[in-house]
């Protein structure tokens, strides 16, 4: 399994690691795999001798960790203060309804994934949404809806 060996290789970079290395390892594995698989969590917990429930508990505490692979289109909605004031709650509400997934999850067809971050540092453009690395400024629910539909149309075109 290529997947498993990748995780093992990441873990090997942390020999003699103690429980204080848990978060760096989780980050490194996520960097490698794009998400934390069950298998990865089990391997990490075995390496650090921490129960899996605890590793999973720590990982779910932080927004940065996800447990499903990213979709083809990765939508990041900013929920920082400035974006909030400018209505990002409505934007997030729309996108969860349109994609029928909660933040941190990926649609079943693996097309879209959703992430919420606290601030992207682009407060002047609030509310901000990031789609596969591209920033969209002053987003409204309508505007984002159009963006998502465009992605869908493109995929349909690709057949």
């Amino acid at each position, binding site marked *: 399994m290529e997947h498993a060996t990748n995780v093992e290789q990441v873990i090997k970079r942390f020999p003699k690691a103690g429980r204080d290395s848990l978060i760096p390892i989780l980050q490194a594995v996520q960097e490698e795999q794009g998400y934390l698989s*069950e298998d990865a*969590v*089990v391997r990490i*917990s075995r390496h650090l001798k921490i*129960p*899996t*429930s*605890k*590793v*999973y*508990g720590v990982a*779910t*505490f*932080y927004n940065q960790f996800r*447990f499903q692979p990213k979709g083809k289109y990765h939508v990041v909605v900013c929920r920082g203060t400035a974006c909030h004031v400018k209505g990002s709650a409505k934007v997030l509400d729309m996108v969860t309804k349109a994609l029928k997934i909660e933040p941190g999850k990926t649609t079943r067809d693996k097309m879209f994934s959703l992430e919420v971050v606290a601030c992207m540092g682009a407060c002047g453009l609030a509310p901000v949404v990031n789609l596969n690395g591209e920033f969209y400024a002053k987003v409204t629910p309508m505007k984002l809806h159009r963006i998502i539909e465009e992605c869908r149309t493109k995929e349909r075109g690709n057949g």
Partner: protein
Amino acid sequence: MSTFTIEANGQKLEAKKGETILSTLKRANIKVPTLCHIEGLPPAGACRMCVVEVEGSPNLVPSCSFPVAEGMKIKTNSPQVIHTRRTIIELLLANHPDDCLYCVRGGNCDLQSLARNHGVQVRRFRGARNRRDKDISGPSIQREPDKCILCGKCVRICEEIQGVSAIDFLQRGSKSVVGTAFDKGLNVSSCINCGQCIVVCPTGALHERSNVDDVLRALNDPESFVVVQHAPAVSVTIAEEFGMKPGADMDGKMVAALRRIGFKRVFDTSFTADLTIMEEGSELAHRVATGGVLPMMTSCSPGWIKFVETFYPEFTPNLSTCKSPQQMMGAIVKTYFAQREGLDPKKIVSISIMPCTAKKFEASRPEMGRDYTQDVDYVLTTRELADLFRIAGLDPATMEPEAPDTPFGERSSAGKLFGATGGVMEAAVRSVHFLLTGKELEELKIEDFRGMKGSKELHVKVGDLNVGAVVVSSLGQARRLLDEIKAGGRKDIHFIEVMTCPGGCINGGGQPIGTDIEAVKARMKALYQIDRDAPLRVSHRNKWVQRLYDEFLGKPLGEKSHQLLHTHYHKRDVMV
């Protein structure tokens, strides 16, 4: 240890240096309400129910974790303290489901009684009601996370006492929830079904999978022949469910009440405890004689069995292959007893009453049955038995004691001792000594195996052999011992008794809720009292066990025994 005086509510109290305010107050019988506090574990200070006012301190302090200091002046019920506690309760109730009428813990819930005691009568804060899926996947334990108040007691007992850590806090802030790795069902987690989490849970967020309705259905089915067995530790705790002081033995009265409910036969699991001793004692002697895998470990406690299968699969050859007394009874009821009475085994419904939630899981194990029927059909905990009595309108305390039924009613008090930590070992030593030397022990009572200590050991001279015997209770203790053995130590041990719950079955996960260490000690004392006064104190002199061998089984470790009374174990592939 240095002591000094502090003052609480104007009363002078003696305090020991280093202890917490709560322990000082407890000694003086001053009650402070707690929710997240577990006696004997380091304080968590999570719930803030136990706050008190300390003169000179700007804020209220949590008495469970705040150390006493000389000259401290404490108020435990000042207006500020009471106001704060009430607010805490009101906040806890803000998103609570409020379905006390339908809750298994209604009437026996810490949150409910705190609310009542603090005069909370209106809902002052309205949060969004918790809505989370129930986890009904477990064979023994069910979770209702929307009733959880996140006190963390279950998480701590699972980790710090049992060394299992099947559950932990997941998510953060208002989304926090107690759950397993990847929030899966308990059935596929590393949970070993011990139920200690249920016993400490202050609300109805954790409870056993109830089989009361199944038992009632069986009792009302004219086609079924319903037999029941009750475990050694049940008779000394069921009284507490009916308002009596801990430590009262209701053996005969309980048997009478079980008959009133409609069970056709009432058997005593202590009988098969005696049988277990015959098999397990012979197995130990056999292993010693033939150079088998040592140290041998007891197999009566199903939580422990799953623990070994899950966390220490390399030790499964060390486990005795004997089934637990519950399963031995189940097996002989559906074979020997059915034959003797001319009954179709498929029409027998075999019920057991256990102090244990893991027994439900054990009874459902696929290897515990034959011809597509399970040996034990339903397992009730002590608490469920009390429910059954209440449904039937019976108060066992008012019954005239009756004796259990033949052929599995007679027991030695050695079998009864199985209910407390060290009891299996004591019973085994009494009989193994006789089996190997042909002589009885001069003193049957073995003090070294008794009491609440988590780990006890003794080297017993049996003939020429110096048998090293270790007794541990709670899986945290067991884990320490296994790690020692794994590291190559403890070559002097031959036999290890492990009980999953601290103190043994008398403190099992199916026992009455809301008890403290003193209650457990009282239950233990009751078992020792029974042993002291019993006419028959050794398993190998149980006449009906001998008769069972003569008429049916042949000899210990014989072929029939092997088929019916012994089992095997699997490695469990779960996320640990």
